[in-house]
């Protein structure tokens, strides 16, 4: 029942129960805030300058080849009946484009982040698990690219895979009127984790990858099945095709660019020398129907990645604002410091 004893009910006298925990009470005093703003402001300006200058050193060569304008080289390819259309985009570099040069293709107004587009894939299938080739894992939704009209299972299923970007490019340097092909390196353009862990090919049946895909059909928009994506390199096929991997990493925003190739080999290891270039485009990918745009981008990178002036400018602006703010606060503080002593 009851605890006898003089102070049986006395609460524990500890710092915790008595709410006397040792503590530090930060106060927004002028001595901390004003110098703090100044220091942060200066630091930001410093970082901003660094970022901006770095960003300025990055060379970018960007060309829209959608062919909207009638006089643009690829206009004729925009006519839907024109299959296997090829067009040529030329450009010239006035200075050396320092290597390694990265060759991107870019799309705008393309909603890879559309929810129902984004969920339309099957990761179980893409790990090479053949159980999910014919049946579908319950928590994934490949529709409407799960089965074709004959009810054959599509592998790889889903809208993302189906809509893979299929324009191809060849780059030539024009030296004295002759075209010299610039070697493009398509190896290792996807994330290491994607290539090595996330995506796996099914185990070949009798040494043949194609046999593993037996009983399935290719995605509707694909000209060839998955195991024949790259006819030149047998190891670049199936779910481990680099272009496929790059495409499957869907973009966050409706305007994006994806790595197509790297220019690292041969005469171009140090970069693209100044001169005239010609880009041959095998124009297959229709974007005009939804007012999309296609472009190619040549760019090199720095420690801060690709060219992006925003960060540098933002740091500069925020830093300057901080400095201005610290001055404003100093003025306000000096003006009101004495008045609040009177009426406390």
């Amino acid at each position, binding site marked *: 029942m009851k605890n006898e004893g003089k*102070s049986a009910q006395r609460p524990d*006298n500890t710092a915790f129960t008595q709410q006397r925990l040792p503590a530090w009470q930060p106060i927004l005093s002028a001595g901390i805030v004003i110098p703090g703003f100044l220091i942060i402001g200066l630091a930001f300006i410093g970082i901003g300058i660094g970022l901006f200058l770095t960003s300025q050193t990055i060379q970018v060569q960007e060309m829209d080849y959608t062919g909207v304008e009638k006089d643009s080289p690829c206009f004729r390819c925009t006519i839907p009946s024109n299959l296997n259309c090829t067009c040529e985009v030329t450009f010239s570099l006035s200075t050396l484009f320092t290597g390694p040069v990265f060759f991107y293709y870019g799309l705008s107004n393309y909603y890879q982040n559309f929810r129902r587009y984004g969920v339309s894939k099957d990761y179980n299938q893409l790990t090479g698990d053949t159980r999910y080739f014919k049946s579908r894992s319950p928590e*994934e939704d490949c529709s409407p690219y799960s089965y074709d009209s004959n009810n054959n299972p599509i592998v790889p299923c889903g809208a993302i895979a189906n809509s893979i970007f299929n324009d191809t490019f060849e780059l030539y340097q024009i030296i004295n009127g002759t075209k010299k092909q610039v070697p493009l390196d398509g190896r290792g353009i996807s994330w290491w984790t994607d290539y090595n862990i996330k995506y796996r090919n099914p185990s070949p049946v009798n040494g043949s990858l194609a046999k593993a895909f037996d009983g399935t059909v290719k995605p509707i928009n694909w000209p060839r099945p998955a195991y024949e994506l790259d006819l030149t390199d047998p190891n670049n096929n199936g779910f481990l095709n680099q272009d496929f991997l790059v495409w499957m990493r869907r973009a966050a925003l409706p305007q994006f660019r994806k790595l197509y190739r790297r220019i690292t080999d041969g005469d171009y290891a140090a970069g693209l020398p100044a001169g005239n270039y010609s880009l041959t485009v095998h124009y297959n990918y229709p974007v005009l129907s939804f007012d999309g745009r296609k472009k190619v981008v040549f760019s090199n990178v720095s420690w801060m990645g690709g060219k992006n002036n925003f960060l540098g400018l933002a740091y500069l602006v925020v830093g300057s604002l901080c400095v201005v703010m610290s001055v404003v606060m100093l003025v306000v503080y000096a003006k009101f410091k004495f008045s609040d002593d009177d009426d406390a």
Partner: protein
Amino acid sequence: IYVVFFYFISSEERHLRANDREYNLSFMYANNAIKTSKYNVFTFLPLNLFEQFQRLANAYFVFLLILQLIPQISSLSWFTTVVPLLLVLSITLAKDLSDDITRHKNDKHVNNRKVEVLINGELKSEKWMNVQVGDIVKLENNEFVTADLLLLSSSEPLNLIYIETAELDGLVTETLIKYTISILYISGEVRCEPPNNRLDKFTGTLTVRGETFALDNERILLRGCTLRNTEWCFGLVVFGGPDTKLMQNSGKSIFKRTSIDHLMNFLVMFIFGFLAFLCAILSIGNGIWEYQEGNSFITFLPRADGANASLSAFLTFWSYVIILNTVVPISLYVSVEILRLGNSYFIDWDCKMYHVKSNTPAQARTTTLNEELGQIKYIFSDKTGTLTQNIMTFNRCSINGKSYGKKKIDFSWNSLADSKFCFHDHKLVEAVKSGSPEVRAFFRLLALCHTVMAEEKTEGELFYQAQSPDEGALVTAARNFGFVFRSRTPETISLVEMGVPTTYELLAVLDFNNVRKRMSVIVRNPEGKLTLYCKGADTIIFERLHPLSSKLMEVTTEHLNEYAGEGLRTLALAYKDLDEDKFEEWKERHHEASTSLEDREAKLDAIYEEIEKDLLLLGASAVEDKLQDGVPQTIEQLAKADIKIWVLTGDKQETAENIGYSCNMLREEMKEIFIVASNTAEEVREELVNARKKMSPESGDEPPIEKSRFLGKKSQVVEDEKVNGEYGLVINGHSLAFALQKDMQLELLRTACMCQAVICCRVTPLQKAQVVELVKKHKKAVTLAIGDGANDVSMIKTAHIGVGISGQEGMQAVLSSDFSFAQFRYLQRLLLVHGRWSYLRMCKFLRYFFYKNFTFTFVHFWYAFFCGFSAQTVYDEWFITLYNLIYAALPVIGLSLFDQDVNDRWSFQYPQLYAPGQLNQYFSKMAFARILLHSCYSSLILFFVPWAAMCDTVRDDGKDIADYQSFALLAQTCLLIVVSVQLGLDTYYWTAVSQFFLWGSLSVYFAVTFTMYSNGMYLIFTSSFPFIGTARNSLNQPNIWLTIFLTTILCILPVVAKRFLFIQLKPTINDKVGSTPRKVPRRRISTRRSGYAFSHARGYGDLVTSGRFLRIPVKTRSALFPHTDTTLYLYKKNM
């Protein structure tokens, strides 16, 4: 007719026969087994879940879950809802389960206790649960009372028993109960009231061998008590198990809600509307997008349902309801409960609110009202036992027109004196010693006319058991002056009169009650002379005096005025010699009246009235009751915190006024103290209006009423009016009764609320509640009622917050209170420290909680414009699941449990710091709107800075980084860091615990993120963790971290700048106090007058006369002694 009669018995009245199981069983009364548990093994899960799903929050979860199961709508995986739902459900489930297991164990333990039951004339040991109504049980010392028993006999002389009522009210109170029938093998029949929950009332009759006796509460031994100092007793089971008063009492209590609760509910409703609004915008956006672009995008994403824009918009609406559901923070309610519970524990744990003397810690009995403690505007306090100690000492007296009591005297000449007693007048001793007959009669009266019990364990060591402390004080006084009350039997009272043992025959006790306001005894002295001794309220006694006493009455009245002026509580004493014949005749009629079944009380009162007349005045006594420690300081502190204090007391006006002065409520420096004491409604109104005009000449005749309609409830709120200077108001019960009438109550409210202090005297318990209700209804203010007695219960229950003083008047106030402690002075700690902190913490919690959830959610809103309004989430689904549950849960709990802006010493030093709570400054609709804007800003930064930084950029090896998964990781990391830094900024009090929570949560975030994005998790749960490698590939990029840093700075620095500028430009009280720590000179506490109080309650009148007056009418126990108004003194003053 027979059927009707039977029905009457079984439903209205309980009918049972002692020792006749067969007969009793026919009524199907509940046996003594109790069941407090709610569930059994099979019903637990379904019943508990059913209960839980009745809660709105859980039902909302289920609604979301159903939406998520529709594939066209589901924008989030099912687990985002199921995980938190399961967590909330299982926490509640676990809590309920452990509670119920405890209850089961207790039930089993209690039901299996053994007791001796008389069966067929033999005592047999039985389990409690097998005891039936009508059984006779034998209890031994220190045993628990088995059921509600009718007491039959006990081992102690006079057949008294002692009990401890611990389980009933948690305090050791020794009470006496009396025995009636000493025959064990009775075959009595009991008829009594049906089971009910009134602890202080019992009505019934006992019929033994054709004779009928009345039974009342004094004969009932309640389950839940423990037998003490009594060898054994026998009792007849009247109510068993669930029918006992204890079990009937453990029902539901009134559920109080705080103003923050109401505001929160309003805001949640608003947020629901807001959510619908956001979703509507987005679904319209979706419709437009589908119409303009989606149609064409069909090339890459054909849809089975076609490109129907309106259908798509409709589905999108629901998809966004799922995604944006985090604006309605369901975990809010759980978190609020947790932090209130935590803050309640801090109250329970507070050493500075622990009273060593009575071994009583403070107790938060209701754990849902804490923050309201920081918003109190009006305190309604009882006086006796709350402001005062309720320990009475005999201080002054007037005997035969002579006033005594100024200097300290020595009682060493009397060997039976109480050593603690002191009295300040030697003349009185002289008078006693010299044998003045009036003086002797005076003390003889005090020694005889009471219902005190004496215990003399060893020779000369007397111990008095008195129902009220003042009775004890009077008897002790008589004892010290040589009229020692030694013992009593039902028929006699033994005194030692100046050393001579004398035994008086006790013929009748005319006990005290509220209406009579007096008590009398009729005794026969050893010489055979019959005398009636009477003591009571002066006005009552004076009305019944013999004309011979009129002169003495005038002198005594003067003395009484003087005593009351000093704040003492007074009683007038009178006597009358009786005629033997007349008495015999009276006694017969008295017996008749006391056995009548109808109107017993009224008849008895009439009989009493008959004999209590033509009294001869002896004099008057004055008893003091000192203030509790620290009351003036506390009241001053509370006044400085701008809390208005109203004292509602049953005391006389002078006494109350003096108390007002001595406890610093009324102060010398007050401009004026208005006294309203009129006899007609018109006069009262006039006085109130005059007082108001004086305080504020420009105040209009019409009260400044602000009518508001809120959720269909109409409310009339009287606004505060400006007053120059401080005023006080004293109003007596008579005037209060007029003032509380419908047409005048607003007048009263206006006037009273303009005053700093209000004292209402001679107030009944009902009026107390009415006053509280009045303020509660017409003022936008939080009220607190504090009291210690049964008469305060109504007020404690009415006020927003009820505080009980666990003191001497029993525990009823505590039982119905929300907070309880032992001393009034702890109130300032409860309000100024705990209340303030709780309010601050709650408001901070709410502000931060809404901020973090809105910010979290709004980012989705902005993203919608970039993803075709497709209800694509910005963050990883797991982040959405765990954000409120893990990442951001503990830090905010830490903030709201440990934060303090100033420590307790400063809270006391600057009571002004309490004001923001009263004005609702820390959390209001305005504050909410500001949070909304702040969240809007933060979410814009949180979305558009990463958006701009990631646009068209790549990793430093040229690979992808602007992909959806990296962007999601970046956005969620930015968000979490921003809200964490914001939390640190909001925390005033950086303890190790809160820092641990903050940094711990951040590191848990990174740990969990890296784990979930690891190879292993992907290989095991492929489709659940598709974010594999994202953390590794993006968090090693400098531009990612530069973006995070930029976002954080952009979100935080404006807040810092704003706060800094506000401190300079518009400093709050906190800022001022924070910047200038300096001593404030204490206000001098007025010591001009001393404060006293007095109380009186109905005694053991029927108990001490038991043998003779078996059929004592059933009376309700009184509250304070002199209840109605005596304006006698006022007339004099006004003349």
